[in-house]
């Protein structure tokens, strides 16, 4: 055994020593073990499957919290020694875990939300024949997501990135007999793939410039030589961002997320609110070191001048936030409203990263994970209560029939809207606005404020229409509160929607990105108003504006008055600004057309003209040539003589 292998052996043995960060291995592997156990063992029993999956996730959550406490209080970052995944020449990919503030926080979020969602699902999907498959997929998903969180290098991140895509594919397509679900799953996967394509190229660029794929080593390389990426620095950043664009559903790759609502609602809560879509933002933060390098463009892209990759990211994020919010205005499907809201919030986070505030983005990610999961689960409870009715205009008056759901939903809405002081959403949103302001992006700041006004508007539209007024259908009239297994997670999620802000989470994250960070004096609940009053005031103002508008328009309405007032704009909003149509009309037919052309060429030219032609001409030559063999001796003698003449002539020449 050579030294290299020996080193690995040592690494392997040390991986499970008693260091606290080694807990991360258990956290990562528990869901995988559950998934494997379901696939190969208890598949036939839905009860055992769910129990296995839930207990694994809960254990992982408990371990995550322990790890978080260990790190959060200790405040240091470390990675366990790596296993070798593939070592060839200069390509070295190790299976190592990055355990630091960023990842432990995410661990808590992922395992926590996942555990709650799974508990919720036992009731929501009770009796579904595919329950074991569901829990297997969700365990697999949790594992993949934890992998992204813990990956200490780009390739491993890409691996889990793809796995998240796959497991979300399985989950969205859970009801695969439903054509819409099957289509949505496919669409989600492929749209994500488009982003992954860029991500992969980004990895290649970074690897070829720095010689490594490990975050630490890349950081060291860029620390030693900030221009190591040379003219490709900005390109590399944008390519990596492509991955985030896919997962976090940024414009123009946002189209999959609303469709993905075809999956079971708990799935939407888990992957399309709290985890998978957050992966993009997390990844940007994880590889933030790349974006800190001085931007540069290849020579022929000189006209981009001083624009950095971060600027572009911020613009895309901001645009997505606005666009999604506008679309959310006119959606009637309760889950779609939430989906577009998610899009909008993700845009917000991405914008924050682009404005130089990854800590703000992570902060918002954390809070958003809580309340958006809450909202989705609440929506699920509503849908469940209304016999799978999703149109808010067919609900109404649910507030007293579904008391727990209503209350928790209201808390979630408040958090999303960013009600000051009380909710976590306010603080994280404020952090983003501050980041935009501090980053010197007044326009984006304005955009953020605008979105901050839109958010309460469409959320209140949802709450007012669905929960207040009179029931508009029988389903709504006879709605009953969901069972314990569903309400309990709602309550559990409502707590962090309020309480997260009370801990110094923002400072905790800032310290990760900036080692020299010192918490502001005089923090606490009124911190935002003290440090950056402009942002806090604008944020609060926009909230009031949105709330007022919503109440004004929708209180007591039985149909949506907006289409009349907005006209064409409303139609555009309703139809999601026709993005799907445009894509349907351009991308798919384009590939199909090329495919058709290629297939035709293959059939008629390569196989037809080429192969059948060769075959035919050879056969024809054979048939023609044998006509020489007339059977007449005179032909033979003549050819013989002619042959002699030629041969003798050539031979004596």
């Amino acid at each position, binding site marked *: 055994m050579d030294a290299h292998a020996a080193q690995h052996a040592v690494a392997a043995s040390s991986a499970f020593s008693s260091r606290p960060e080694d807990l991360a291995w258990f956290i990562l592997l528990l869901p995988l073990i559950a998934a494997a156990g379901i696939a190969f063992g208890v598949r036939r029993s839905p009860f055992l499957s769910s129990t296995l999956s839930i207990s694994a996730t809960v254990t992982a959550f408990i371990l995550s919290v322990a790890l978080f406490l260990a790190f959060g209080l200790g405040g240091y970052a470390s990675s366990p020694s790596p296993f070798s995944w593939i070592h060839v020449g200069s390509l070295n990919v190790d299976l190592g875990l990055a355990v630091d503030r960023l990842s432990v926080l995410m661990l808590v979020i992922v395992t926590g939300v996942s555990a709650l969602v799974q508990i919720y699902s036992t009731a929501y999907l009770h009796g579904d024949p595919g329950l074991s498959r569901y829990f297997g997929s969700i365990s697999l998903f949790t594992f993949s997501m934890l992998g992204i969180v813990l990956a200490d290098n780009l390739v491993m991140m890409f691996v889990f990135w*793809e796995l998240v895509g796959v497991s979300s594919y399985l989950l969205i397509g859970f009801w695969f007999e439903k054509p819409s679900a099957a289509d949505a799953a496919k669409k989600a996967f492929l749209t994500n793939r488009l982003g992954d*394509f860029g991500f992969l190229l980004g990895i*290649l660029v970074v690897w*070829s410039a720095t*010689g490594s794929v490990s975050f630490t080593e890349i950081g060291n390389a860029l620390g030693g030589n900030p221009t190591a*990426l*040379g003219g490709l620095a900005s390109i590399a950043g944008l390519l990596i961002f492509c991955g985030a664009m896919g997962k976090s559903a940024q414009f123009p790759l946002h189209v999959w997320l609303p469709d993905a609502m075809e999956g079971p609602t708990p799935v939407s809560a888990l992957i399309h609110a709290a985890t998978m879509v957050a992966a993009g933002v997390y990844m940007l933060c994880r590889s933030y070191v790349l974006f800190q390098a001085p931007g540069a463009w290849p020579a022929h892209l000189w006209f981009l001048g001083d624009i950095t990759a971060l600027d572009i990211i911020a613009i895309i994020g901001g645009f997505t936030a606005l666009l999604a919010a506008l679309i959310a205005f006119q959606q009637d499907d309760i889950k779609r409203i939430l989906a577009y809201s998610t899009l909008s919030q993700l845009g917000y986070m991405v914008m924050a990263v682009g404005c130089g505030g990854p800590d703000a983005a992570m902060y918002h990610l954390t809070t958003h994970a809580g309340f958006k999961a809450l909202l989705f689960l609440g929506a699920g409870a509503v849908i469940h209560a209304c016999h799978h009715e999703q149109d808010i205009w067919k609900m109404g008056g649910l507030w007293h029939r579904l008391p727990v759901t209503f209350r928790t939903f209201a808390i979630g809405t408040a958090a999303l809207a960013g009600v000051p002081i009380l909710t976590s959403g306010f603080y994280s949103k404020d952090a983003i606005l501050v980041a935009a302001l501090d980053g010197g992006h007044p326009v984006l700041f304005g955009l953020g404020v605008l979105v901050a006004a839109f958010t309460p508007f469409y959320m209140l539209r949802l709450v007012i229409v669905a929960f207040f007024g009179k029931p508009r259908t029988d389903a709504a009239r006879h709605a009953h509160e969901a069972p314990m297994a569903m309400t309990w997670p709602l309550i559990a999620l409502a707590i962090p929607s309020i309480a997260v802000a009370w801990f110094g989470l923002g400072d905790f994250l800032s310290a990760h990105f900036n080692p020299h960070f010192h918490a502001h004096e005089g923090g606490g609940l009124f911190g935002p108003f003290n440090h950056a009053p402009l942002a806090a005031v604008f944020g609060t103002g926009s909230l009031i504006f949105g709330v007022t508008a919503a109440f004004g328009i929708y209180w007591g309405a039985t149909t949506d008055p907006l289409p009349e007032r907005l006209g064409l704009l409303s139609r555009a909003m309703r139809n999601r600004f026709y993005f799907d149509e445009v894509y349907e009309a351009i991308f798919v037919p384009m590939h199909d057309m090329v495919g058709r052309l290629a297939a035709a060429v293959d059939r008629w030219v390569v*196989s037809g003209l080429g192969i059948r032609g060769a075959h035919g001409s050879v056969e024809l030559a054979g048939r023609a040539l044998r006509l020489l063999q007339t059977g007449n001796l005179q032909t033979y003698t003549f050819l013989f003589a002619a042959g002699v003449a030629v041969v003798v002539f050539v031979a004596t020449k």
Partner: protein
Amino acid sequence: MSLSQLLLTPFAGALLVLLVPGNYRVVHRFIALVTTAITALGAVSVFAAFQPGIAGMQFEEQAAWVPAAGFGFHLGVDGVNIGLVLMASLVAFAATCVSWDIEKQPKLFYILLLVMTGGALGAFLSLDLFFLYFFNELALVPTFIMMGVWGRGENRNYATFQITLYLTLGALIGLSGLALLYSQSGANTLDWVTLKAWLAEKPLSGHSQNLILPLLLVGFGTLVGLFPFHSWAAPGYAAAPSATAMMHAGVLKKVGLYVLLRVALPFCPAAMNHWATPLAVLAMGNVLYCGWVALRQRDLFLLLGNSSLAHMGFCFLGLAAANVIGVTGVVLIMVAHGLLAALSFGLAGHLTKVTGTSDIDKLGGLLKTLPFVGGALVMAFLAGCGVPGFANFPGELTVLFGAWKSFPIFVILAAWGGLLIGGVYMLRAIRDLLHGPLRDGSIQGGDAGPWRRVPFLVLLAALLYFGINPGSLSDRIAPSAERIALVKSISAPATVAATAHAAH
């Protein structure tokens, strides 16, 4: 198990089947199954006993054969072929399992299958290039007869002849290249180890290399389905019985690549440099063109056949890159794709048998009625579009890494083809075939019973094992790849200017 025993096992099995009278059907079946199982176990043991980190040959065996013509019998494994041997024997075992239901002339079928297995193993194990060719061609007649007698579809006869003639032409052109190598090297041998040592001292002249390499590329490229010499593949696999398609698409197809790795790279380095870009262009033909063609296929087998061709494009790209990363990636893909192709063709065969058609338009929602086969097929399709966890992913990834420095544009295109186009047709297939409501398509049989699952589980397990732990392969491959790669390793980090320039 020594290599010669490993090689002889299938032939001994074939002989045994031959000696058992025709009406003992169960005995034939049993012998074939046991033989391939022993072969597979033997290959696993050899794989396990193989020392990683050593570049040279291991378990070598040598015997004089035709000293008068300069040919010897020489077996041995290094990193390049050890994985292929393992893959071949696993696929052979799976193919035998899948053939459990053969009703027509089972005796002949099993003899042919075992001969085919022996041929494939022999091709990978032989270090004398003559024997490599010999064993590869040995599998030709079994392929022909199996496709003809047990094949399916209207087009069977044409496809059978097409595949046979096409592959023979390719093989012969390749053989011409080998013969030229023999005469131009002056070593008077086709023994790879001797040739390698000889040519290290006296490399071939540029003229000779430029003569030999095109022949090798076109000839052995055809065996792999290098664009535009690919049209035999899809219709051929569509017409072949499952076991034949599995063996051919999985194993025999790789022989061409294997020869290119063994011969073209180390022996014609200068010409390889010269032809690298054209080769990469053709590789794009595989990845993109065949991918697009696959996009339009409505027959499951044609789809799988074209997708298999698209995968081969990655191999050619890695070959064109010709560095240690690329070469390692090529071998990884070869192993992975062998397992995958066998898995998909086996499953597709089962599915076709159950439903009576392979027309995707007539099928749908099968996951509901065939949970195991459908689920396995989903996994196969996902593996086919390069999802991590399956062995294809590390292979393709490695190739992309290897080729990035030399062919950034082609890597971009290949990634597009692999991630996007591959994703589109694979997912479409899942969508149309397995998802959605159940179509009227008559389902006569059911899902695979416990025993019928064995071959698929074996292949899936291997795919997953190498997907999760590619190091177990790459640590064996890399040192040997180092010996045949043109560029030993990319010195990192290279100058950024060069990269930027290359990206233009």
